[in-house]
């Protein structure tokens, strides 16, 4: 019964994400946070911007703000648009930002986890509901929340110092 209720509850929570748009500043925070993900070498990081039809415009704007590469702390972040209906574009990505209703799509979350890609959203409901590994808020102050269970499912781990400075759930 418990095994049944938990996914349902998670699905209900994920079904109603807040409509928080991801900003360029959010991308900077995501990029800097990627510098503390373990077992990734080099400084180039590819961010898959997963969107649906409703968030396609937001995705285009984010891709434009990344330009030829956004320098964020230790890493340089480049972007790639991925439609939630066709996740083949996830290959080679280091992280995936989930936009709009995608942040509540359990199948996308599962696919991203299966590819061992760090999923992130500016919608904190997503990380609370185990829909993504990391929730990021850049204003008014930086807040980073990591869902430990989901990080484990995606085989993503963080530097010890980083883990002590963020919120884990």
């Amino acid at each position: 019964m418990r095994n049944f209720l938990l996914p349902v509850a998670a699905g209900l929570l994920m079904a109603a994400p807040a409509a928080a748009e991801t900003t360029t500043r959010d991308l900077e925070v995501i990029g800097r946070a990627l510098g503390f993900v373990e077992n990734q070498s080099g400084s180039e990081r590819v961010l898959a911007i997963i969107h649906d039809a409703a968030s396609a415009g937001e995705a285009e704007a984010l891709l434009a703000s990344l330009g030829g590469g956004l320098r964020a702390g230790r890493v340089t972040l480049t972007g790639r648009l991925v439609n939630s209906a066709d996740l083949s574009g996830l290959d080679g990505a280091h992280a995936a930002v989930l936009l709009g209703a995608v942040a509540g799509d359990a199948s996308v979350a599962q696919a991203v986890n299966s590819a061992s890609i760090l999923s992130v959203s500016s919608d904190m409901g997503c990380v609370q509901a185990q829909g993504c590994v990391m929730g990021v808020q850049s204003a008014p102050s930086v807040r980073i929340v990591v869902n430990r269970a989901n990080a484990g499912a995606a085989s993503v781990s963080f530097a010890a110092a980083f883990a002590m400075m963020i919120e884990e759930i």
Partner: protein
Amino acid sequence: MKTRFLLMSATAVSAAAVLSLPAIGQSLDYNAMSGLFGEAVTAGATGAPQRSSDVPATMIIITRDDIERSPEFDIPGLLRHYAGVGHNRFSFGDSQVAIRGEASGYMPRLLVLVNGREVYLDSYGYTAWSTLPVQMEEIQQIEVVKGPQSALYGFNAVSGVVNIITRNPDFENWVTARANIGNGGYDDVAFTAGRSFGDRASVRFSYGNAGAEEFEPIASNTFAVSLADGDYSRETASLEGRFQITDNVRLIAEATTSEVQLQELTSIYYTTRSLYELHSYKIDVEADTDFGFWTFSGYRNETEIAYEFGPSSNELTTFRAQNLFKIGTNDTVRLTAEYREGTTISFPDPGNGGFGYETMAFSAMWNHRFSSAVDLTLAGRFDSVDWSRDGDPNPAFYIFTQEDYDVSFEEFSYNAAMVWRPQSGGAVRFSASQGVQAPSMFDIGFTLLSTTTPIPLAITGNPNMETSIVRAYEIAYDRALSPTVDMRAAIFTQETSDVRGTFGAFPDVLPPNAPLPVLLFNNRGDTQTTGAEISLMGDPDGGWHWGVNYTYQSVDDDLATFGLFTALDFESATPEHLVNAQIGWAGERFTADAFFNYVSATTSPLQPDFGTLTRFDLDAAIAASFRAGFRVNDHVNISLNAQNANFGSGEIANVNYQPASRTWLQLSTSF
């Protein structure tokens, strides 16, 4: 031997089972972390890395930008501009810093560390700031933790801790060369460099050489007048290598050397000229494992000091094992075991037997996050100390035998703090703490036969001296008043019982109870400081920034009779009001900064000649300092600095030497 064996065994066992807080600070990428979170980060408050807004203590974090914009040539000068910091420049090179109290000569209550290594001289019990083997250009940040911090840092962190963190060559390559030349014979050159070699090794190096003519002495300080022709000189070097042994294990090795000559004011308000030759060696091994962040560290400080009253030669060896880990998502734990051994030759009178101590300490810290709004931090430390002497002081002069020095004591210190972030914004901190100040080697084992007094006197340390216990309570509130203005405020009280105190002019023991009249190091009573501080800082648009802070401190002493039995008088010597203000502007190539400091009137003890304790009135003073900088290109900067510009040829701001206006031109290059 048996005791030592047991202590070392205990260290080894604890090392096998459990980490230390200051250690992780050495591997933090401060630039990346502060860039990520948009605020300073630190490991200085609990041993665990934290955002400055989360730390369970009132802290000052001075960044590299702050240092570059200050018209100051040393670290105490930087510190004096912040709330709750007392400062006295007793000579060109002898500055002393206090947190919420009197910045006395040889200030014993503030623990100072460089990258986690104590630079506090626990032989006499103070920090000789000029001897720190650090150049301003290699400092990543300076962390000041206010209030007792013994539970993390051990003995002597009773009014606070200053932890100086150097730049990390693992994360950046740099080369700087700088020359200062100014009035009063001031010149100061420094070279610093950090470079990584692939992913596995990096090196940091620094060298500095400075000199200056001494200020004018206070006319009524007879002894200072007699030493007035002694100028200041400083030469230091530091070399650090960092090696990535495996993906998760890092080794850090450091060696430093300092040679400094300067005039100073001692703890008995008596002037001395001192020559320091210090060497240190340190190794840390850090391992980021599935079972926590482990740190094993050891260092050795070798200290040779020639005071006016005799030589002192000391060694401090410390080993520490620490594990820092999270349990679940809301609990962070730090466990530490530490062994210390301090030894010294018989001083200043040779032939009375070398002596020293061994300390075994265990400490733990637990931080629990109840919610994103509330967290609690509890830390405790237990210290066990054993003293011994390997010879008999000459019984014709001294009252203690070798056996009298076989003393032990055990002490517990703690820190407890709750941080609450109300929905209305900001953070409120409630904290309580107990710190321990241990008797220094001087306090315990000093032996000197004074023949310059009308009758011969024995000046002796006291193996029966008690530790000094400091209890502090504080409520603090930090918040942003607007997007560009931050406020930090605190009210505090701090009680010190069994104050470590030096002798007065009247002997504590007289014949026939002693072969000669004895001036004895001893506990001299109690004191309490209560106060408040508030800081406002603004970063409006247009390249401007400003700051203003005010500190009120009221001291209530219950000490032995001044003059007769102690030289201490915190109540008169602590300024009641401190006000600091600064304003600065930065354009594309130009920067301009102005700093102002107000210190209210005090009355300071003074011992112009040995055995003649008196008091000296010091008027309230305002100091104004300025800096104008010009960036010639991406690699070359030039600045004009005026420290205490309104002091002219000297301001009577303390009882030793008169700080004068110093102006210097700085040319610096960086790559």
